């Protein structure tokens, strides 16, 4: 597909609205807020693109969160995300309406879609952005961590349009919802072929977290790594987290071992957390893990190996066996609490 190169033909900021099991992903709503800010800077408006089946109520929701218009592509075959038909939706609408900027949530599906789409359109796509600016020439400055968060790269797409980027979940705040806010809902037709649907989704196994507090909102996060050796040992971390009023997280190696759900994962391909206190237990401190927690206010590391990289970014550390240290921490914190309760009671 060849899009015209004349940049003046492109207007508007778009957000790919990702529906999942009847709801819009939080990151899509967060991006509507950021899109609004960018649209104001560019003197233009915000559109959402919503492919799906029976998703019109979600289009109205997107408008209440700030979209001026939603392009709606409804088809029973679009009920679940699939690469080829979703790429065709985006490519067709982009060719038809020529947005200047297109934003995606950096979810698995968002990256799957963006990666295919940018090759088909032959335009730029920056992954995993954490910040956007408009530069003096009116280009979108797409800012993303590189090298495991050791630096921030500014990516520009100067000659090609649209400028496309994916953004990490939870870096932009969700804008306030304005019930009753109005906008246009424009149904669009896309010329699908049979081949577009040659991929089928045979099964979906849901893995729920079971934990109340979300790690990205928790003030204290206690994370476990491969050093925990067995999923049942996460019980220890839950106890410690409960004593401190925190939530439990994990390294990717613990997640990929199947010990805890993906939602627990901290790091480059997991969540970014900035709690007041981050306790890393049995985690070696690979750059990809640090990328997700290095901005925590205080960091405690517990590791057998005094040379583990995690100690390099820790404020406090215990070199020792987590199977002795963690239960001891739980015991002493309880003891201190009990003592405090007694001293308050006897005052």
């Amino acid at each position, binding site marked *: 597909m060849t899009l015209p190169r004349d940049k003046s033909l492109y207007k508007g900021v778009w957000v790919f609205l990702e529906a999942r099991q009847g709801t819009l992903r939080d990151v899509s709503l967060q991006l509507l807020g950021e899109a609004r800010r960018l649209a104001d800077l560019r003197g233009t408006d915000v559109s959402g693109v919503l492919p799906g089946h029976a998703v019109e109520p979600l289009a109205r929701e997107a408008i209440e969160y700030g979209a001026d218009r939603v392009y709606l592509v409804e088809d029973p075959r679009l009920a679940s995300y699939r690469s080829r038909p979703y790429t065709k939706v985006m490519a067709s609408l982009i060719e038809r309406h020529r947005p200047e900027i297109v934003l995606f949530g950096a979810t698995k*599906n968002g990256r799957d879609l963006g990666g295919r789409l940018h*090759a088909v359109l032959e335009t730029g796509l920056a992954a995993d952005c954490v910040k956007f600016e408009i530069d003096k020439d009116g280009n979108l400055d797409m800012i993303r961590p590189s090298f495991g968060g050791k630096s921030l790269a500014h990516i520009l797409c100067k000659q090609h349009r649209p400028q496309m980027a994916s953004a990490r979940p939870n870096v932009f705040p969700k804008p306030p919802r304005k019930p009753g806010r109005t906008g246009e809902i424009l149904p669009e037709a896309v010329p699908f072929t049979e081949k577009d649907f040659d991929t089928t989704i045979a099964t979906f196994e849901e893995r729920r977290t079971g934990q109340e507090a979300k790690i990205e909102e928790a003030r204290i996060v206690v994370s476990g790594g491969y050093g925990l050796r067995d999923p049942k040992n996460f019980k220890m971390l839950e106890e410690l987290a409960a004593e401190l009023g925190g939530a439990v997280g994990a390294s990717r190696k613990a997640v*990929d071992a199947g010990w805890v759900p993906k939602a627990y994962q901290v790091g*480059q391909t997991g969540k970014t957390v900035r709690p007041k206190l981050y306790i890393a237990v049995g985690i070696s401190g690979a750059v990809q893990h640090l990328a997700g927690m290095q901005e925590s206010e205080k960091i405690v590391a517990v590791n057998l190996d005094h040379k583990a990289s995690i100690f390099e970014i820790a404020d406090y550390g215990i070199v020792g066996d987590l199977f002795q240290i963690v239960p001891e921490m739980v015991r002493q914190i309880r003891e201190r609490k009990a003592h405090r309760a007694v001293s308050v009671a006897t005052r």
Partner: protein
Amino acid sequence: MPEPKGPRSIVCIKQVPKAQELQVDPVTNTLKRVGVPSEINPPDRNALEMALQIKDKHGGEVFVVTMGPPVFTAALEEALAMGCDRAFLLTDRLLGGSDTVPTAYALSEVILKIGGYDLVFCGEETTDASTGHVGPGIAGHLDCAQITYCSEAELLGDRVRARRAVEDGFETWECPLPCVITVNFLSSQPRPESLTGKIRVKRGGLITTWSCADVGIDPNKVGIRNSPTIVAKVDTVVLPDRKAKIFRGDPKEAVANLLDAMVADGVIAP
């Protein structure tokens, strides 16, 4: 030559600097890249392993492809020693500074030039660029099916079924061949190089080196000039200098000292 039985897999691998060794130069505040040892991008090893397992089960052959400077030969040799049948190096000055658009285009042209493929494997993302866009980009150029973020794949006749990890669980996708599959890091234990593999590499003749012209790659579609994106600048992230207070020895004492220190610093309530 008789047609080989079984599927042909093509694995795209990249050689990357070892992530753990990248350090910010305290004087210039830029990343020190020279002299940093390199390795096969870790998820690409899992991609190789997945392709080799399919060959173990169904026969056929596994080819490995990389685009980069001649030093990337080291990565190809390692992949060959793991059990790949042939390797292709696309190397050309014209390719310098390519972003994911030309990279995906050039790799898809190499795949077409090889002629015939059933499966293309990529890693989920690289540790140096970390976009994960090249795999789906190749699928876009080839106009074939894609399944990303896979931990398992199985061949069912002329279809492939793969288990894909998403945020809230696992999906199983099924599609006809040919298909591009991107493979998750840690999804398998990649096999080591074998001795016979190393000997085969030593004997030589397994690596084909191509330039853009050899493949028929359009010079106006690759390289820094034809890449939609540029890195305009890089800011170093300055993290607080944390002077770790380290406790060791008797667990009871160590924990007591830790908690006392944290109370003294106001991190936790007394």
